């Protein structure tokens, strides 16, 4: 079980074949490298190597002020945009005692859920690409472009908008935001049956995912995985419910869980999360005041002392941050707890014993994003 690197993985045993997957591999969703030992079709050993995208977020952020840290956090889980900014913003707001207006909280939550849908759409396209289907990629990116267009009209950038700030958001909503989102939700609800046909009800997907890569409940908890991977193993842990933040206490939604714990269950849970996001967004469109304050009062120079761990539930799971302030305007230490970082640790658990072709399906069901894993 323990993975040793030395001569052994290179040479292998006489009955073992070593296959190197990555860092350039179309199905690794980035720059993951997995050294896989094979006995025939069966995987006997899997050693993940990460760090090919290590860009020293934590060190650089120590030399930037709190306001300057926020755009850096965008670059972590780059598929889900503003979601990354929230833990830092929440932790600093806690430590500095900044009040956030209700409307700002709702705007934040709306963007949070929009990016969750966008991220799951990217996942759906790329996961199906890994399984050999090209069409879902075209459709999901088509829909994702609509979300990014909505985000760009308000926040100014498509993917990494640097939109949240301490005390609220940076700028007010575009006049057409509510109309755009409502239209998009109608559009998405029309599209979702198509996606179910193409993905969840697809016999090829069934054949390649059902019963593959089963992660038991106890193992999932002990491994510290979170997000859809944990919920597919039957644990109803969701930071949005467990430690609510922003406008989540005011909206109703469910935590979809599945007891199967296999790759198909992880696919299924992500689908249900899209439905839940649509539900949340519909409620927020009703509740959010059309006009009003979008930003609370925050000092121009934040000086913070104390330490705080805050977490949010991003598209991949619990995205946490541990901020330590020493009284200056720069953080003494920032530690990011990447959701996909913890999720990816289960690679040896899931890979060993599976077939080699299953490895691709399992990896796509974990949905890693390397900006957040390597940081």
């Amino acid at each position, binding site marked *: 079980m323990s993975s040793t690197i030395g001569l052994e993985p290179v040479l292998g045993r006489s009955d073992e074949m070593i296959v190197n997957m990555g860092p350039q591999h179309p199905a690794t969703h980035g720059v993951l490298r997995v050294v896989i030992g094979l006995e025939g079709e069966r995987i006997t050993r899997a050693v993940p190597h990460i760090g*090919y*995208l*290590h860009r020293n*977020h934590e060190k650089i952020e120590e030399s930037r002020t709190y306001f300057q840290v926020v755009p850096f956090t965008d*670059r972590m889980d780059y598929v889900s945009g503003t979601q990354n900014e929230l833990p830092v913003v929440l932790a600093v707001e806690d430590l500095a005692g900044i009040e956030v207006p209700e409307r700002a909280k709702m705007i934040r939550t709306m963007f949070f859920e929009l990016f969750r849908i966008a991220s799951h759409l990217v996942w759906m396209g790329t996961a199906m690409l890994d399984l050999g289907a090209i069409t879902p*990629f075209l459709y999901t*990116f088509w829909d994702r*472009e609509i979300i990014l267009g909505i985000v760009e009209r308000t926040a100014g950038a*498509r993917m990494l908008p640097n939109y949240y700030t301490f005390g609220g958001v940076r700028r007010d909503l575009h006049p057409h935001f509510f109309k755009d989102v409502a239209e998009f939700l109608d559009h998405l609800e029309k599209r979702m049956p198509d996606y179910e046909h193409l993905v969840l009800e697809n016999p090829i997907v069934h054949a390649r995912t059902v019963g593959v890569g089963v992660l038991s409940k106890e193992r999932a908890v002990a491994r510290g995985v979170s997000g859809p991977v944990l919920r597919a193993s039957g644990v109803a842990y969701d930071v949005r419910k467990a430690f609510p933040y922003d406008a989540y206490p005011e909206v109703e939604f469910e935590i979809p869980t599945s007891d199967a714990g296999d790759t198909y269950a992880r696919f299924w849970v992500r689908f249900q999360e899209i439905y839940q996001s649509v539900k949340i967004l519909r409620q927020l469109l009703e509740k959010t005041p059309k006009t009003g304050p979008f930003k609370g009062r925050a000092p121009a120079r934040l000086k913070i002392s104390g330490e705080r761990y805050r977490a949010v539930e991003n598209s991949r799971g619990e995205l946490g941050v541990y901020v330590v302030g020493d009284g200056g305007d720069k953080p003494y230490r920032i530690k990011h707890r990447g959701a996909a970082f913890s999720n990816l640790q289960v690679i040896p658990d899931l890979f060993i014993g599976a077939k080699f072709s299953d490895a691709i399906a399992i990896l796509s069901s974990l949905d890693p994003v390397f*900006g957040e894993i390597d940081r």
Partner: protein
Amino acid sequence: MGLLGSDERPRDIILGTLDDLINLARSRSMWPLTFGIACCAIEMMATWDPKVDADRFGMFFRNTPRQADVMIVSGTVNKKLAKRLRRLYDQMAEPKWVISMGACANQGGPFRHGYSVVEGVDKIVPVDVYIPGCPPRPEALLQALLLLRDKISDRELRYKRPQEIATDYDVFAEPGEDGRIPVL
């Protein structure tokens, strides 16, 4: 090479037209390598989505460097990845071109002050077109691909790029005594 590339060559020699013809074929079928690194990779994928649709210009992703013409360096290159990136570049068949996409690939971008980031992919491989942005929007990548298309069709017919990159990185796959590039 000199005759083909120089301006003084007689225009009516048929070699010149063949030259242009080959360049035309090359510039209209650029096949990038599927090599996503970071944030820009998502925008790179979005360039091939229905909205922007780079397929219109005859560009398709190839999964193996042996079949690819263009490498789009879409993200931060750190010291651990640099060797692998250079190896992929060496594996691509000539002629080959490199597009540096985004601030990180250009000069390290916001992460250039860090300890592990290579300040610019042009320290490792020769770059033809640079795109600013963090990340550049898909249309910007498309514009860069069209710039590269112009560059290919305007330039002389080249089979091999001169070794124009001198660097102190010990990441180059130097040919061994038998003339072959050593494997990992």
